[in-house]
C-alpha cells in the first residue's frame, strides 16, 4: 500500500519536472520552449538593429557632409554627463547579468536585489538625460523650438573655432539627430523599465526562481541591447573631434 502511494507521487513529480506549470501546451519539451523563446528575442533584437540602423545611416551621411557643424554641436554637449551615463548603463548591465545568474541559481533574494538596483540605475540614467535635455533647451539647442546658432557663430570658449553662419545652421541637423537618437534610446529605456517593474513584482512572488528563467534571460538580452546602442551613441554624439 505504502509503496504504491510512493510510486504515484514519484510519477506525479516526474510529470511536474517534465511538464511544469509554466510550460506552454504547444511545445514538446521544456528545452524546445527555452530555445524558441531565446531565438525569438534574438530575432527581435535584429529588427531593433535595423530600426536604429536607419538613424545611424542618416547620422553618418550628414556627419560626413557637415563635419564642422557636427563637431561644434558635439562639443556643446557635456562630456561629463555622457561619461557618467555610460558608466551607469554599463554598471546596470552588470547588475542585470547578475540578476540572470541569480535566477538560474534559483536564489530569490539576490535576484530581487539585483533587479532593483538595475531599475534604480535605469532611472538615474533617465534623470541625468532629462537634466541634460533641459540644459539644451535653456541654451536654445532644440530644433524647432527657438533654435539659435549664436553659440556656434560666436563661441564663448576662446579655443573653439567660430563657424560661418551657413555651416552653423547645419548644427540644427546635428541636434535633430541627437534628440532623435537619444530620444529613441530613452523610449527603449522607458519600455525596459516598465517591463522590469512587472518582472520585479513577479519575481517577489517566486515566479522565476523555480526553473522558469526565460523571461529574465530575455529581458537581460533586451537590457544589454539598449546598453550597446548607447555605447555606440556616446562616441558618435559626444566625442566628435573632442581632443583635436
Amino acid at each position, binding site marked *: 500500500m505504502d509503496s504504491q502511494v510512493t510510486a504515484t507521487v514519484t510519477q506525479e513529480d516526474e510529470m511536474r519536472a517534465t511538464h511544469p506549470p509554466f510550460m506552454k501546451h*504547444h511545445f514538446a519539451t521544456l528545452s524546445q520552449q527555452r530555445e524558441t523563446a531565446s531565438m525569438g528575442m534574438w530575432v527581435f533584437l535584429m529588427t531593433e538593429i535595423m530600426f536604429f540602423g*536607419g538613424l545611424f545611416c542618416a547620422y553618418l551621411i*550628414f556627419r560626413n557632409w557637415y563635419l564642422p557643424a557636427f563637431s561644434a554641436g558635439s562639443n556643446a554637449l557635456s562630456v561629463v554627463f555622457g561619461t557618467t551615463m555610460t558608466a551607469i548603463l554599463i554598471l546596470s548591465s552588470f547588475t542585470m547579468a547578475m540578476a540572470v545568474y541569480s535566477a538560474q541559481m534559483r536564489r530569490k533574494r539576490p535576484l530581487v536585489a539585483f533587479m532593483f538596483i538595475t531599475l534604480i540605475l535605469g532611472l538615474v540614467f533617465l534623470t541625468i538625460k532629462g537634466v541634460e535635455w533641459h540644459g539644451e533647451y535653456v541654451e536654445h539647442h532644440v530644433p524647432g523650438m527657438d533654435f539659435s546658432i549664436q553659440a556656434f557663430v560666436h563661441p564663448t570658449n576662446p579655443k573653439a573655432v567660430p563657424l560661418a553662419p551657413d555651416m552653423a545652421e547645419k548644427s540644427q541637423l546635428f541636434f*535633430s539627430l541627437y534628440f532623435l537618437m537619444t530620444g529613441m534610446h530613452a523610449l527603449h529605456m522607458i519600455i525596459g523599465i516598465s517591463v522590469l517593474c512587472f518582472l520585479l513584482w513577479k519575481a517577489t512572488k517566486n515566479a522565476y526562481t523555480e526553473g522558469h528563467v526565460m523571461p529574465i534571460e530575455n529581458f537581460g538580452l533586451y537590457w544589454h541591447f539598449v546598453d550597446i546602442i548607447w555605447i555606440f551613441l556616446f562616441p558618435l554624439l559626444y566625442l566628435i573631434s573632442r581632443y583635436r
Partner: protein
Amino acid sequence: MSTILSLPDQTTAKLPRKHFLNQEYGLRSWLLTSDHKRIAILYLCSITFFFVIGGVLAGLIRLELLTPASDLLATDTYDKVFSMHGLIMIFFFLLPSVPATIGNFLIPLMIGARDVAFPKINLLSWYLFVTGGMVMLAMMVLGGVDTGWTFTVPLSTHFLNTNVVAAATGVFIAGFSTILTGLNFLVTIHRMRCPGMTWFRLPLFIWGHYATAILQILGTPVLAISLVLIILERTLNIGVFDPTKGGDPLLFQHLFWFYSHPAVYVMILPGMAVMSEVISTFSRKRVFGYTAVAFSSVAIAVFAFFVWEHHMFIMGVSQYSALVFSLLSMLVAVPSAIKVFNWSMTLYKGSITFEAPMLYAFGFIGLFTIGGMTGIMLATLGMDIHLTETYFVVAHFHFVMVGGMLMAYMAGIHFWWPKITGRMYPETMSQVAAMMTFIGFIVTFFPQFILGYLGMPRRYAAYPADFQVLNVFSTAGASVLGIGYLLPMLYLPWSLVYGKIAGDNPWQATGLEWQIQSPPLTENFIEIPIMDHEAYDYDWLANKTRHEVQTVG
C-alpha cells in the same frame, strides 16, 4: 474532364464531430483566441474587407479614366483616390494576404506543430493590423491623403495639407504587425518542426515563407523609422529631409525603397510558395529541382536588399551606382526564372488536371512571367528613363502584384478551402471565376503597357484624347476583373453551408496538413507526427494505409 478530386460518399459523409471551428462559440472565443487557425480566419475576414475598399477605389480610378477630361472626380480627389488605393492594397491587403492567412493557417500544420512559436504574439499582430487599419479608415473619413503610397518627400512633408501624419501612423502600426508575423514564422520554422522534418523535407511553401520572414524582419523596421522621420518632419520640422536646413530628400528615398523594394518580394514570395504546392499536386509529380526552388527563394530574399536604387534612377543618383544597381536588379530575375522553369518542368509529363486552383496557377505563371520580363526592361537604364512614371510601370507592377500575387492568393484559397472549412467550393463556378479573372486582367492591364510606352504619365486624372481607346479597353477589362473577384466572395460563403463534404484529402496531396481531418482539430495533431519521407512523395501517399483513423469521434 479528368479530375483528381476524390470526395467521400456524400450520402453518408459528415464533418468531423469536433474541430477548431466548433471547439468554442461566441465572439469572445474568436477575439481572444491564440489558435493560429482562428487567427488566420480573422485575418482572412479583415483583409477581404480592405480588399473591397481598395477594389472600390480602383473602380473609381478606372471610371475616371474612361474619358480624357477630369470629369467624374476633381483632380485633387483623384490624387487621394489613387493614393489610398495604393496604401490600402499594399499595406492592408497584399502584404498580409498569403502569409497572414494561408501561411498562418498552414505553417504549423505543414511542419507538424501544434501552433506557431508565439501564439499570443500572433494574436497581437492581428490586433496591430486592425488598429493600423482603423487609423487608416479614420484618415480616409477625415479627408484622405494624396501623397501616393510612396510618401514622396518633400511633397509629403512640406507641400500638402492632407492627413499625411495619420496615414503614416496607420502604416507604422501595421508595419509592426508585419514584423511580429515574420518573427513568429521564422522562429516557428526553426524551432517547431516535428521529428524527422529536416530542412530538405519541408514543403516549398515553408521555404517561401521562410524567405518572406527574413524580408519582413530586416526590411520593415527601416520603413518604420522612415515613417517616424516623416511624422517628425511634419510636426516638429526636424530638417532631416529638408534641403533648406541641410537635410536631404533623397535620404528618404533611400530609406523608403530599402524597405519597399524588399516589400514587393514580401508580397510575391508567399505567392510563389503557394504555386509550388498547387503545381505539384495537380501534376502528380514532385516539384522539379526541389533544392533549386528552395534556395531560389532565399536568393530572392538576399538580392532583394541590393536593388532598391532602381526606383531612383531619375532622381539624380550617381551614374556609377545606377549601373551597379541596374545589373543587380537584372540578377534578381535569375532566381525568379529558376522558379518558373522548375514549375514548367514539373508540369512536363505530369498528369495535369485543370481544377480551379490549377487554372489560377497557370494564370500566375503567364502573368508573372510578363510582369517579370517587363521588370528587366525597366531595370535597363536607358529604357527606365523613358518609362519611369508612365503607365508602363503601373502595368508592370500590376502584372506582378495582381496578375501574380492575387492569382496565387486565389489559387491558395481555393486549394486549401476544403482543409480550412471541410467543404468544397463549387468547381464549375470557380473555374469560370478563374477564367474571368485572367481575361479581365489581361484586358485591363495589357493596354497600359502600350499607353505607358506611348508616354501616358501615371497619377493624372486627365489625359490627351488620343489615349482614350486603350483606356476604354482598360476600364472594360476592369469590370470583368471585378466580377471575377466578386464571384468567389459570393460562392465561397455559400459553400460554407451548401458545399460538398470534402473529407481529409480531396486532392490526394502529400503535405502533412492533408493527412489530418478537415477542418483540423484545435491542437492540429492528436499525436505529433514523425516525418519519414520526402516532400511531394506520391508513392508514399499511394502506399499509405487506407484505413487509418484520422478523425476523433
